């Protein structure tokens, strides 16, 4: 199967669209003023029409072309070894396997291969903005992550009888949200966050306007690179805001989930508190649900690799018991 047939990510943002996005950011105070004036005067003019007019006028389109030439595009093509993967299996179940925040499919590839050996078809999904460049990462929104997984699940539904979502960390949170609204046969969330309380969080949306990115700690980078997983060395702060928006929405629809679910937590997880998994387990409406603890792992379950083979066995037995 060719790569493009299963690609579902929303990375194909054209340079022209990016420039438009930036220019809109530049003139956003004036757009806000116009919006305010419109509300104040009850005018029928829509801001979108005015912007569209401006974009299509020839002197402005010439300026856009000039800017296209001046500024290099944001790198939105994936690295070869961080690209998503698709492993065909012989049974009727297809798994969408998703990585965590700032990571990429290479993190979960080994886990995917072990599941594939058990007979499952595995699609290692790369969420938008991941595995490309931090600049690209900083312009996606949580809706892109949701739509990307939803599309992948739709495609898997057409190929296979059963579609299963497995997500690590933020990928797990997206999986929870997708399974609340779409036809999914089972769900496995691994260390998925739904409520975090980092210090100074209330200030983060404001701070992220002025401090664009924050470096990752050297120790966590060292551990990730030792596992030969390519990951961003910085975290765009506005993406942390997006992650919190995702968690807020997921919390609201947690009690709408009624598919068989395996909730996994890691005993030594210092990133996502244990209570998150307990709360997910107690809130979802699924009749068939199980709780499993990776006793030896930290948050990076697939990088630590201490509980991966046990997790594969657990996932396999859970799916055979509740899905087939």
């Amino acid at each position: 199967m060719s790569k493009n047939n299963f690609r579902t990510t929303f990375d194909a943002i054209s340079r022209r669209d990016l420039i438009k996005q930036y220019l809109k950011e530049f003139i956003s105070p004036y757009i806000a003023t116009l919006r305010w004036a419109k509300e104040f005067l009850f005018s029928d003019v829509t801001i979108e029409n005015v912007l569209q007019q401006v974009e299509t006028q020839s002197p402005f389109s010439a300026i856009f072309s000039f800017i296209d030439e001046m500024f290099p595009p944001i790198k939105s093509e994936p690295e070869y070894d961080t690209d998503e993967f698709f492993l065909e299996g012989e049974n009727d179940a297809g798994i969408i396997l998703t990585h965590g925040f700032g990571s990429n499919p290479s993190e979960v590839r080994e886990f995917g291969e072990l599941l594939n050996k058990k007979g499952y078809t595995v699609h290692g999904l790369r969420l938008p903005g991941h595995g490309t460049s931090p600049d690209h990462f900083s312009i996606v929104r949580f809706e892109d992550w949701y739509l990307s997984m939803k599309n992948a699940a739709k495609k898997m539904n057409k190929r296979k009888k059963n579609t299963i979502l497995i997500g690590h960390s933020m990928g797990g949170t997206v999986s929870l949200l997708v399974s609340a609204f779409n036809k999914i046969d089972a769900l496995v969330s691994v260390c998925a966050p739904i409520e975090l309380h980092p210090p100074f969080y209330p200030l983060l949306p404001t701070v992220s306007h002025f401090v664009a990115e924050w470096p990752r700690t050297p120790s966590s980078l060292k551990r990730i690179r030792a596992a030969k997983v390519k990951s961003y060395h910085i975290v765009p702060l506005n993406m942390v805001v997006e992650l919190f928006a995702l968690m807020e929405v997921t919390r609201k629809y947690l009690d709408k989930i009624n598919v068989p679910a395996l909730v996994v937590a890691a005993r030594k997880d210092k990133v996502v508190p244990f209570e998150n998994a307990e709360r997910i387990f107690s809130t979802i409406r699924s009749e068939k649900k199980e709780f499993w603890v990776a006793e030896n792992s930290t948050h990076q379950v697939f990088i630590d690799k201490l509980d991966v083979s046990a997790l594969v066995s657990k996932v396999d037995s859970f799916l055979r018991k509740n899905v087939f």
Partner: protein
Amino acid sequence: MGFLNSDSTGFKWWVTPANLLFISLFLLIIDYEVNDGSFFRMNWSYWVVLIIWTAYLVKLIITRHPRTAWLFFPSLMLIIAVYLLLIDYFNPPNNGPLGLDFAVIPASAVFIFGTLIPIISRLGYKEPTPEERFAKIEPLVEEKNNE
């Protein structure tokens, strides 16, 4: 001569500002005249320098801090307002309040309509909540909420 090949991987962050600094200095030096009577003792070079650094700033904002881009034009308007006041202040007859003549009205218009009102409107603009954003892409939200 590897650095002349087209497969260069780019430059350190300080190359561009350092080069622009020396280009600007060069332009200012060749334009400088001791007793020509102009305010800066220069005729044209400061405009070129201003344009060069503004273009660099815009590029920096776009490539490094796109989320701060909204401050650019209001800041520019503030600078223009101050510039108008300075021109007025250093040119006679200086008969008005605070020694100003023509610049009071245009500078206050630029400052109020170009800086203050846009910043207030931008800061006070209510962003849609995560739930409202999600409802726009997921048609089943209403149905689920009514369950």
